[in-house]
């Protein structure tokens, strides 16, 4: 009874905390980008803009208003939406409205939503791979601790951990697609169009992302398990004749679940905000590549929207992880 009450209270508090964090992020991001030194209108518009065009940008971005007014306007858009007049017609941007892209006049929200399936496919597929690879390797290393196998596994994961994703991805692409021609150079095919092609084309991006991430998960799994193995309760089960396999597989692994949930949530959250490098490298039209594009043309509304969105995903994932964690380990709620 009281446990349930405590749990609900915890969830509520955690949600509230997440909302506060998000608001703070929005303030910081907004202020940082719109208060940055330099003439925003000129930067946004580009060097060759005419004064009239600059004027138009200034109006559209309400650059004449004080910063806090602009922020409140932006915030209002998030909650109630806005109407924009695009020359002749009036376009309604429903809540949560992140504004319009200066470059394409598209609504930032729609722009992002259109790219989300690509990024989502990449992130979720890679996650399955890295969890299988990483946790498997970690368990193996913990089980064979102190032996040659562990040292080899540790060395391999360290190398994976140390390799930047664009190096691994680049080499994979060159070898697999270029030299061996086993796979075509990745080109995104929507799942709804052709699931098989979808998977084949994403295989390489998944693999390169997963190889790097798996190293991290292997290390976490191994170290969390070793930590548990040094604890007193493991000694109890040894003293009661419980076999090593059960001790590692049941008791030590259980101790790694919490940290794994936390790490995975954080990773997934930030990947959803755009796997910038992987997408750029493989030319996948996801949120990350869109961001690079927006950055290159200094499309501030898109940039701010995407940074906020990534923050949103990270905060959301972490809040979810905390709740999951609380379910898995009720002690955190009670204390």
């Amino acid at each position, binding site marked *: 009874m009281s446990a349930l009450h405590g749990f609900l209270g915890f969830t509520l508090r955690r949600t509230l905390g997440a909302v506060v964090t998000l608001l703070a992020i929005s303030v910081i991001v907004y202020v940082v980008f719109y208060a940055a030194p330099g003439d925003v209108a000129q930067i946004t518009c580009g060097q060759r803009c005419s004064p009239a065009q600059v004027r138009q940008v200034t109006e559209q971005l309400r650059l004449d208003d004080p910063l806090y007014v602009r922020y409140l306007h932006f915030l209002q858009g998030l909650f109630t939406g806005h109407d924009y007049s695009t020359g002749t017609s009036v376009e309604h941007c429903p809540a949560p409205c992140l504004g319009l892209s200066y470059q394409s006049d598209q609504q930032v929200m729609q722009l992002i939503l259109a790219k989300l399936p690509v990024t989502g496919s990449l992130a979720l597929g890679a996650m399955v791979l890295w969890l299988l690879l990483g946790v498997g390797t970690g368990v193996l290393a913990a089980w064979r601790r102190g032996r040659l196998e562990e040292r080899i596994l540790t060395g391999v994961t360290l190398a994976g951990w140390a390799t930047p994703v664009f190096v691994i991805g680049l080499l994979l692409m060159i070898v697999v697609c270029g030299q061996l021609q086993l796979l075509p150079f990745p080109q995104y095919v929507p799942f709804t169009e052709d699931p098989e092609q979808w998977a084949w084309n994403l295989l390489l991006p998944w693999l390169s992302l997963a190889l790097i991430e798996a190293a991290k998960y292997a290390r976490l799994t191994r170290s969390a398990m070793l930590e548990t193995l040094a*604890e*007193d*309760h493991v*000694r*109890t*089960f*040894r*003293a*009661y*004749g*419980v*076999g090593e396999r*059960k001790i590692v597989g*049941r*008791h030590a692994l*259980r*101790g790694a679940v919490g940290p794994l949930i936390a790490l995975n949530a954080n990773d997934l959250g930030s990947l959803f905000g755009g796997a910038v490098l992987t997408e750029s490298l493989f030319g996948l039209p996801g949120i990350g590549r869109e961001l690079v594009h927006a950055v290159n043309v200094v499309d501030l509304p898109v940039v701010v929207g995407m940074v906020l969105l990534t923050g949103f995903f990270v905060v959301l994932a972490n809040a979810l992880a905390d709740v999951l964690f609380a379910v898995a*380990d*009720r*002690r955190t709620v*009670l204390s």
Partner: protein
Amino acid sequence: MSLVEVTGLSVAFGSVRAVEDLSFRLEKGAALGLVGESGSGKSTVASALLGLHRGTGAVVDGSVRVAGTDVGAASERELRGLRGGKAAMVFQDPLSSLDPYYAVGDQIAEVYRVHHPASRRAARARAVEVLDRVGIPDAARRSRSRPHEFSGGMRQRALIAMALACEPDLLVADEPTTALDVTVQAQILDLLHALREETGMGLLLVTHDVGVAAESVDEVLVMRHGRAVEHGPVGSVLGSPAEAYTRRLLKSVPRVDTPRPPAPPAGAVADDASRDGVVLEATGLRRVFGRGSKAFTAVDDVSLEVRRGEALGVVGESGSGKTTLGRMLVGLLEPSAGGVRLDGAAVTGVRPDVQMVFQDPVSSLNPRRSVGESVADPLRARGERGPAVRARVAELLERVGLDPAHYDRYPHEFSGGQRQRVGIARALAAGPRVLVCDEPVSALDVTTQAQVVELLDELRRELGLALVFIAHDLAVVRRVSDRLAVMRHGRVVEYGPADGIYESPGDPYTARLLAAVPVLDPGLAALRRAERREPAVT
């Protein structure tokens, strides 16, 4: 064939020889106590009985036979059969000894299935059965709880239940009650006694507490530095010890039934006119931690006074609020209500007049600074500089019985007792009139305990210090206190002259506390046990 036969056992960890040439036997159904101070190697022996040193790098020599198994020569498989099946072990800290993630009943069932080809359901039923046997109320429901949902005493019962599950011939209990409050300790010891009578299993009890051994075993083996000092029936070893070390050990053990030794005459204070003068006074002290529905009142409306040159003992079990009270007295914690007066004037925050001696000799000194620098802290804080500081520190170190030349040494070069002396010197450096000692000796061995207590008493007399002596151990408190405050659930339940309270407690709780303290006389212990009967559950 004896249940346990240990012959010429030696265990070494690297260059440290933990146990040397130890031999003893334990017959079926008998109970042996391994008694010794820290570093005596007693727990190492317990682990060796189950072959727990295998694969840890420890070098084990000699032969250990338990229930017909040669532990040294047994295969992994035989060893696993022995562990839990024929010989089961109960550990010191019942919280960390159970897996926090699984239900208690499941953990017991898991162990049961290792030794018996039983279905999951049957094993679960067995778990409930043994939990019920060790006095867990509503065992079927509680078996689904996880360890953190149990109280300390219940966790230890659960561990004992795990040990019982496979009906072992031998129970090895390694400091089974050390982490428990004294009333709970009595219950657990009674439970062990009852189980032994019922199942006829042998008991090997490892303890630092001679009183606990006196209550529970037939024979004792006193250990020191890894070797056996004295071995014999508990009555004769404790009643008329043959060895000098045993005598010294027994002499150091504080007795709850012995009044405080009369103070030597004529201290600086004895004839002070203001002997009755109150130095420190607490009125209506209250401290609440947390807010809202989670608010917890640690100390609730406590009023006390501390007089010049006297020792006020504060006793209570864990959670009684005595540590919180001590921290408020020295100003480390702000009270939620009420206040502290020094010489009649209300004060807040820390001040040199009231200093503290802490419990943990490890964490109470900064490991990265020399002990001299730590002691010099209060002097430097009030602006003293130059060679005078060093001279004063040397003086203080000498006063607490340390070599002043050790100024530049670091804490890890000192033993626990010595570190406690450094802590006392640091407190004295501030020039206090009141010294609040929070469990100052509970982390020390009894022989060291006696010395530190003696030092504190001396300082009180010589310097006219007022002592507030906070402890859970009623016997230690009796040794120092003029007056006594007994705390429970944040309140003072009894407050008055110490001897009066010890002789005839006015509050039923105090009476229960006193009755639970182990006594050194096995005969008396048996009598007391009969009085207590089967315990109520903690």
